[in-house]
């Protein structure tokens, strides 16, 4: 095993049920955060009542009627988490935020300074708990703060979860033994875990015992990563760990951005610029540093880490969350520029007793994104026929933007299915939803309006009047007999025009077996003097334009 693969000793700080705590829900209230109508996070009290992750809203409310339902808001979570990260940053400047509620740092320096892992752990738990309590106020005591120290991020995160009160230290070199009894589900790769279980590999220890080459051959790169994690090694391959020096993009904001959305807009452009530059080098970023300078000369900086390559969108999202934390002034004003200054010292020099979190006291004048850790981008497999993937992505983004303006129903796509009338054959589904026809297209549809299909199908149909030579309304008897040949036609209360040619009546007696859906009508094709052709329908004595052959 090469030395570079050995895991760095890492501390993980985990706030359980953070999304609930961040919303300021007191611990005695059952609450759940929902994403896409399913429970994403729930409080301890709610769990005791039987609510669990993945439940539908209705099921959750049935199990616990006084459940407080909260919307998923990563911005809120990140904003509330910022003081906790700042508290952790008082131990070392290189704190990485993994997601709101979880952050990590390497313990080599701080552990020596504070006199060992146990001492450091006690200090971090104390400082971070206080910060979390102040940040969440009413929500304090929801889950508290758990800290785990182990070799490697994965083992440290599991140690934090396994900690009974406060924290847990896995001795150096003991990660593999610590991980041994955990089930493979802990890898957070549901598909792989499912497959492994079916193959009889239940625990991480059993997975770790397999030869690395065989795991790679059978499960691919993802399996190899999981295997490395199970052995307590670094989860990432070592390739390309030092990024080229110029993977930094920055933008000056003039006038200074005091609002999150203005700064976030600039951040979005910045993120795609960095992403493009990385792409030119065939690289993808897994850890990004967000830096901001304010009008008052403060320098704020934070690291965000991601388990996979960060896309431009994901990067922009993280920058936005971070800006949310810095610019929203609902946390107490603390000392400024802690990480910026301590970064030069390169170690654990900051005072642990004064948790001063950073916050911008003025508008942001400079925004900088730096790729801190990069991996070789294996890219996406393009379609066999395709150089058009880039255009597809661009189109999808634009359409999503328009849906953002008009709502999801604002952009639709038409799916042709079976049916008799031109309107029945088409179903409009919101863009991005699966394209499934309303009725099966391959069944026979006797009485279908023949091709060519009309080019305009107004919905609802336009009113029309049809008269014979003697200006009396044209009718059709129950047996399908015409009262008189149509001679004049008026569409939508417009002018009367003569009928040049016509055909019909074509009866359509649909769904007679279902009283509510039953429709009985006759159709006509009519060409007027102006050359316009219509598909007319007569139903219950009323004429309408079902479609126009434009």
């Amino acid at each position: 095993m090469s030395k570079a693969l050995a895991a760095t000793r890492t501390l993980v700080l985990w706030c359980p049920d953070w999304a609930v705590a961040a919303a300021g829900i007191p611990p005695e209230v059952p609450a759940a955060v929902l994403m896409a109508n399913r429970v994403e996070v729930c409080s301890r009290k709610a769990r005791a009542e039987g609510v669990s992750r993945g439940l539908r809203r209705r099921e959750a409310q049935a199990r616990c009627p006084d459940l407080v339902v909260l919307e998923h808001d990563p911005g809120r979570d990140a904003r509330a988490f910022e003081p906790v990260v700042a508290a952790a940053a008082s131990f070392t400047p290189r704190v990485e935020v993994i997601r709101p509620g979880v952050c990590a740092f390497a313990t080599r320096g701080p552990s020596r300074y504070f006199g060992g892992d146990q001492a450091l752990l006690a200090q971090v738990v104390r400082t971070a708990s206080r910060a979390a309590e102040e940040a969440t106020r009413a929500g304090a005591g929801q889950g508290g703060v758990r800290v785990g120290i182990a070799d490697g991020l994965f083992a440290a995160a599991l140690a934090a979860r396994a900690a009974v009160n406060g924290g847990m230290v896995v001795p150096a070199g003991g990660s593999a033994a610590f991980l041994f009894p955990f089930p493979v589900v802990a890898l957070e790769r549901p598909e792989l875990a499912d497959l492994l279980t079916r193959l009889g590999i239940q625990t991480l220890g059993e997975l770790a015992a397999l030869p690395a080459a065989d795991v790679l051959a059978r499960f691919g790169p993802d399996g190899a990563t999981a295997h490395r994690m199970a052995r307590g090694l670094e989860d990432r391959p070592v390739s390309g760990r030092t990024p080229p020096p110029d993977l930094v993009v920055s933008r000056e904001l003039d006038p200074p951005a005091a609002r999150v959305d203005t700064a976030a807009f600039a951040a979005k452009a910045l993120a795609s610029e960095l992403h493009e530059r990385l792409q030119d080098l065939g690289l993808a970023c897994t850890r990004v540093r967000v830096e901001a300078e304010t009008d008052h000369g403060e320098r704020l900086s934070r690291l965000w880490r991601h388990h996979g390559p960060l896309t431009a969108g994901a990067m922009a999202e993280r920058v936005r969350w971070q800006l949310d934390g810095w610019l929203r002034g609902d946390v107490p004003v603390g000392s400024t520029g802690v990480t910026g200054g301590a970064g030069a010292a390169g170690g654990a020099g900051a005072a642990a007793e004064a948790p001063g979190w950073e916050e911008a006291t003025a508008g942001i004048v400079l925004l900088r994104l730096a790729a801190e850790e990069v991996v070789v981008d294996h890219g996406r497999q393009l379609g066999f026929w395709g150089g058009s993937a880039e255009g597809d992505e661009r189109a999808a983004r634009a359409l999503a933007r328009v849906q953002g303006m008009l709502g999801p129903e604002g952009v639709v796509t038409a799916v042709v299915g079976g049916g008799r009338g031109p309107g029945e054959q088409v179903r409009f589904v919101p863009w991005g939803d699966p394209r499934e026809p309303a009725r099966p297209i391959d069944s026979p549809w006797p009485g279908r309006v023949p091709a060519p299909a009309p080019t305009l199908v107004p919905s609802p149909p336009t009113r029309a009047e049809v008269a014979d030579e003697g200006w009396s309304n044209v009718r059709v008897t129950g047996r399908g007999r015409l009262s008189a040949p149509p001679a004049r036609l008026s569409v939508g209360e417009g002018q009367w025009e003569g009928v040049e040619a016509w055909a019909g009546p074509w009866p359509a007696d649909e769904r007679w077996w279902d009283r509510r859906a039953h429709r009985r009508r006759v159709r006509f094709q009519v060409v007027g003097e102006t050359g316009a052709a219509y598909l007319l329908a007569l139903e219950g004595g009323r004429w309408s334009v079902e479609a126009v052959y434009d």
Partner: protein
Amino acid sequence: MALSQALPRPAVPELRELAGRARPISLARDRLLPVLPALADLLPEAGLRRGTTLGVTGGPGHSGATSTALALVAASSAAGTWCAAVGMPALGAVSAAELGVDLAHLALVPSAGPQWATVAAALLDALDIVMVQPPSLVRSADARRLSARARERGSVLLVLEPAGRTRWPEAPRVRVRVEGGRWQGLGRGHGRLTARQVEMVVDGRGTASRERRAKLWLPAPSGGVERV
């Protein structure tokens, strides 16, 4: 492994330049979107040039503006380009599919309301062809902005004006009119609509200034678009 060894930085732009030099023909073709063979010699460059604005007008009555617009985009849609139709709530999807439009690549914005110009501008940014039927008279500033956006982004803006009502204040680079539609197949009390003969007139500015006209089957008895 040192990264600089694995991926020498200047290699990528160099390769891109080389690739560009190796395929000059496809670059010229990239600027042009294909049209159906029956329409090719009616258009100044035998295709839809990216970055242009086309106006499509029907004659009196319903004489084929919608069919013409669909016929113009059909070939490039079948070739996999992205199209959108803004402000055309009644567009018949079945007829679009019959003319050869790929519905999976056609986004419909049925009623954008007063925001239609913003929506069209956003779509021109990323899609290849955007069909627009303005709900009312368009302000010249909006019209100029949309045309400029299409020119800048290399997309095609196709403005549909219903019979006899001018709504686009600018003169489009290429104007397509349909005249004298005559339906076939329908008698007095018998038959069914099978085909329509129209006369298509194309004029405009620049390379399109010479007027071209042709008699077409739109649709032809077989379903597509054919010369008479």
